[in-house]
């Protein structure tokens, strides 16, 4: 799927940097660029973009003002690009795929694009909101006789192991001397959500909901793994995926 994108930022160098980074993504077609919220409004009417890269702090009207004045059916998927973490929490009230704090790297941009694609295609209905402006992006674990630092985005899901936790990353898994609750609180809430008393899942890995062989509700991950879905969390997941079990 080609993503038709609009870049909204009052600073020309910021727009050109984003354009340069997006050049590496063949699936993105930049249909227009706006230097202000007012200009963006007109361009949205004209181009109906799938995704809008939106700066928050702009003179006159801010990015959030723009979203508030847009009718919800006209609202493209939003990827915030901003120098401040302050608005990260309220930003998720809109059709938000991600909140990128400038300067961001290609990995973060790729993830935001993947989320935007899933939202624009209807594969996902919403992304959970952040609860904190700062969160852990690496997790220290001890394996193979040393401390390894696992990038949080590489974690598929986390299971409880007694009082501790186990990180599942592809074929590898690592024990961690931390409680699930502590991990849930310290990781990015827009990426990691609790789906069971003893499981946390990376939103970007969720593919669909199924009933397991024994009839219990489960989540299918991109890897094909099945993760149990607790009754308390079922409605939320169904709403997020737009799928009824």
């Amino acid at each position, binding site marked *: 799927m080609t993503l038709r994108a609009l870049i909204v930022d009052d600073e020309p160098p910021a727009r050109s940097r984003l354009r340069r980074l997006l050049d590496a993504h063949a699936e993105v077609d930049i249909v227009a660029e706006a230097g202000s919220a007012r200009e963006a409004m007109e361009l949205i009417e004209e181009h109906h973009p799938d995704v809008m890269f939106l700066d928050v702090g702009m003179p006159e009207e801010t990015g959030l003002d723009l979203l508030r004045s847009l009718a919800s059916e006209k609202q493209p998927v939003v990827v915030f690009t901003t120098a401040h*973490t302050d608005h990260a929490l309220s930003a998720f009230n809109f059709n938000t795929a991600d909140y990128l*704090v400038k*300067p*961001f*790297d290609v990995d973060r941009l790729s993830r935001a694009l993947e989320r935007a694609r899933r939202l624009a295609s209807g594969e996902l209905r919403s992304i959970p909101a952040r609860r904190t402006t*700062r969160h*852990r*992006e*690496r*997790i*220290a674990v*001890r394996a193979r*006789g*040393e*401390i390894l*630092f696992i990038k949080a985005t590489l974690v598929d899901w986390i299971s409880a192991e*007694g*009082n*501790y936790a186990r990180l599942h990353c592809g074929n590898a898994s690592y024990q961690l*001397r*931390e*409680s699930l*609750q*502590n991990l849930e609180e310290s990781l990015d809430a827009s990426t990691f959500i609790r789906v069971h008393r003893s499981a946390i899942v990376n939103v970007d890995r969720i593919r669909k909901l199924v009933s397991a062989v024994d009839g219990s509700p489960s989540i299918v991950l991109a890897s094909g793994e099945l993760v149990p879905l607790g009754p308390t969390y079922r409605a939320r997941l169904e709403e997020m995926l737009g799928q009824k079990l």
Partner: protein
Amino acid sequence: MTMNDSGRSTRSFADLFGIAMLIVAIWLILAFFNASEFYRRSMAIGGDSRWNEIIAVQLTTSLIWAIFTPIVFAVAERFPLHTRRESFRNFLILGAFTPVFAVIRAIVGGAWHQIAEGNAPTLYFARLSIAVRFHRYVFLTIVIIGLTNIILAYRRSVMREQDTFALQAALTNAALAQLRARMLPRVMFETLRNISERVDTDPNGADELIVGLSDLLRSTLDLDRRAEITVAEELEHIDRYLDLEKARTAGRLTTRIDFDEPLLAARVPPLVLHTLVEHALDGGSGERTLEIRGREIDGLLSIEIEKEGDAAADVTPPRLEQLLTDQFSLDRRREGAKDIVAIELPLRLVEVAS
């Protein structure tokens, strides 16, 4: 009991009630002690004293003392004997107070017994009461004054210990802030210089450094605000810095970090270890290897930072070095081509709750 800003103690109602109950309890025990002693003595010499009468008199005496004790406390507290400048003056004041108080106490006691027997207090009985009880009451007053001074001295030593602890913590923080203030700009300038060199030839590399540097600064500000963090969080932060350093020196830095697994959950003051790691790598840019090891030794978190290779590290100012040595048993040594910095942090393990 709580200490207010000026360091003087203020007592809550609960504290006062507790103290009052303690005083009454001590005097009741003394009443029973005296009564039983008196009773046995009178039995031995063949007197006809009855226990009921003896205990009634002793209880009354003790309870009057219980009422009078706070007065002695208050006077002894107001004129403490172990102050630096006024102890002689206070000694004279208490010396004058003690016999006067003993006389008043004797008169009140005598009068009370007369009233209890249905008679009006008389001057004769007051004189008699003073003659009989003066020595004993002087002794008791001195005992109460002595006890008050012992309690005051103990409380002061506890407060002094707390003050010393707070002062040490403040000094440590100041020392670390000083070291951090020296290190952070160096890392920034070093990285900025590197970025400017790459902008034309390697814009993507420059971009990576810019993102790495801003991530590191954000993380530093975030951790700096907190009183303590886990070792895992500290190491995650250090890993960010090492990534930046590796990007800056184009892979000429090799690192290995090893801590015993349970130590990852230990609580430490933020950025102590990070600052020492920055200091260890400061100035170098050639081939280097860095190893950070953490072990629990004798209930302390013992950490070693071992560096081999290119070095141009400047020397920590002696005063700062001394502070770090005192606070964290900082020890620097050289083994062959390796520079090793060892420190010991207090080990606070927090159990994981399910």
